[in-house]
């Protein structure tokens, strides 16, 4: 297992490195420079001065080598538009995205599991078909549109939740009291619910299929033949094995959460990494874009790796390649 893990880690680092390289060259090839894509270009002499400062007057490969050299020392360079190191900007934004993703995952798995199990228990009957169709519809919605609709209903019409932002900027500029924590959770509810609902719909589909597959196995019949109550057979005997696919879903959830976060953070004015990255793309802020791509791809690759390891640990039938039996 150790050798396999090392090999996977090396491959993961190589993938992240490739993503950073591609991103670096794509953003630098982009039309327009940081100081002049807009309607009011800066005077050329100011632009040249800025360029000298950020090194964009040098050939691309020199810049690339310089960026890598800095990266090797853990330095993500300085942002062009934010007047601060990229690492600082990311450090401010990542926790917000992380908490949003975590809350969304919680909604996703809690709701998805419950619905999937319910559907499997009532398989083929009205409850299953109705729930399945509702889940399919929710899963087919554009995630940002669902966010807009929830905003309209719960923030605008019913006024139960705030319309955006991370906390109340006047009363709670930072989270330093129980009241402010509550305020933060209150702001978190709608975006997390939006992302979670769309995820839960697909989790429920997988969970239903996994549960149905397990229920048809011999040991479940044995448990029933022993005279155990149906509830116990399903929720204790069958569920344990039907939970395995969740690990795979956990690994797959990362790309979806990031894509969703880019859009959801825009809808709910959530100051996370998605919004940081989108704004940076619009402003041609090369270092921020490359830094965000680095963090994102690392998260995706790491998520897959964790899922594989968990799978090998949780399911004794799964053996990693190269390991003796």
């Amino acid at each position: 297992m150790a050798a396999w893990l090392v090999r996977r880690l090396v491959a993961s680092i190589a993938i992240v490195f490739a993503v950073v390289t591609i991103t670096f060259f794509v953003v630098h090839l982009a039309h327009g420079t940081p100081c002049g894509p807009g309607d009011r270009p800066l005077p050329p002499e100011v632009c040249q001065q800025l360029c000298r400062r950020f090194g964009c007057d040098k050939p691309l490969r020199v810049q690339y080598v310089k960026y890598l050299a800095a990266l090797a020392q853990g330095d993500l360079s300085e942002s062009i538009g934010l007047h601060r190191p990229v690492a600082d900007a990311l450090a401010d934004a990542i926790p917000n995205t992380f908490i949003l993703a975590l809350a969304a995952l919680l909604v996703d798995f809690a709701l998805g599991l419950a619905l999937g199990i319910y559907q499997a228990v009532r398989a083929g009957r009205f409850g299953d078909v109705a729930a399945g169709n509702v889940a399919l519809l929710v899963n087919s919605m554009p995630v940002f549109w669902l966010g807009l609709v929830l905003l309209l209903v719960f923030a605008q019409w019913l006024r139960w939740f705030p319309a955006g932002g991370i906390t109340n900027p006047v009363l709670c500029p930072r989270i330093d009291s129980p009241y402010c924590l509550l305020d933060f959770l209150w702001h978190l509810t709608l975006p997390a619910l939006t992302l979670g609902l769309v995820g839960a719909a697909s989790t429920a589909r997988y969970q239903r299929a996994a549960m149905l597959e397990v229920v048809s196995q011999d040991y479940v019949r044995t448990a029933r033949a022993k005279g155990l109550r149906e509830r116990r057979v399903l929720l204790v005997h069958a569920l344990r094995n039907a939970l395995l696919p969740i690990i795979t879903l956990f690994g797959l959830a990362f790309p979806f959460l990031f894509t969703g976060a880019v859009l959801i953070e825009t809808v709910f004015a959530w100051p996370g990494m998605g919004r940081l990255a989108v704004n940076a793309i619009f402003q041609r802020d090369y270092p921020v874009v490359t830094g965000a791509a680095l963090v994102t791809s690392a998260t995706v690759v790491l998520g897959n790796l964790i899922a594989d390891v968990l799978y090998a640990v949780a399911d004794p039938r799964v053996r990693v390649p190269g390991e003796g039996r």
Partner: protein
Amino acid sequence: MNLWNWLALGGAAVLTLIVVAELRRRVRATAAGRRFFRHPTAELGLFVLAFFVTVAIAAPVVAPYAPYYQIDIEHPDHAPSAQFLLGTDPLSRDVWSRLVYGARVSLGIGAVAMLVAATVGTAVGAVAGYFRRGVDAALMRLVDVGLAMPRIFVLLMAVALWEHIALWVLVLLIGLTGWFGTSRLVRAEVLSLREREFVAAARALGAGAGRVIFRHVLPNAAAPIIVSGALGIGHMMLLEAGLSFLGLGVPSPAPSWGNMIADGWHKMSVAWWSSTFPGLAISLVVMALNAVGDALRDALDPRKEAA
């Protein structure tokens, strides 16, 4: 909406119903057709898809206004009424007309992008699976990288390359970032098919690699490609909507469903209709595509017969 538009809309619905019923009657003669229609929502999904395609084709008769026409710029945001079926948007354009014309853009982008993705994915997967070794390793590492890059991010960066992007370039880009999953699927399929006797026989008869791949291997791998294609169109449409929503997708006056959501977004609190209906249309079509894709999976898998 005048009388003619209503008649045309009704005609489209009736025509769709007839087409679906006729299709059902024909394919029920085959086992695969019966498996397809056994899926609880396949028929409804087929109807929704056929309806939107019909309406998109017949857009000039079904839509009362041109998609760009600003009816009364001093009084935008008309609520839905008999005259404006789904209301008018903040630029005083008829939402129903834009929705109908937008079906052309959104469905077209989804279908063409998926075609691009399926072609590239199948080609890469077949080559990797058939030639194995170095080619396989190199191509699959490329796929690993592609899957690790968040797609919306890649697309945003690529779109930023051009200030004003042409529609066909956008479609190509969406397609060219969407083939990684398909190529993995096809590769797995080809890897197992190439060891079969009929492939060995073809090779023994002197068939070249191209002939073996196209004539003997790929036709047997068609089912999973078709299913993933049907499911993939929905993903493409959602992606297009997301990009357009961020202002980096379909160029603005063109009526794509994602664009329409973006146009109405900022006035959602006073005029909910202009963003709600296009989103509903996307949801319905993507759901229909998912249902049809699922049913196709059942239909193309003979092992499902016993169930």
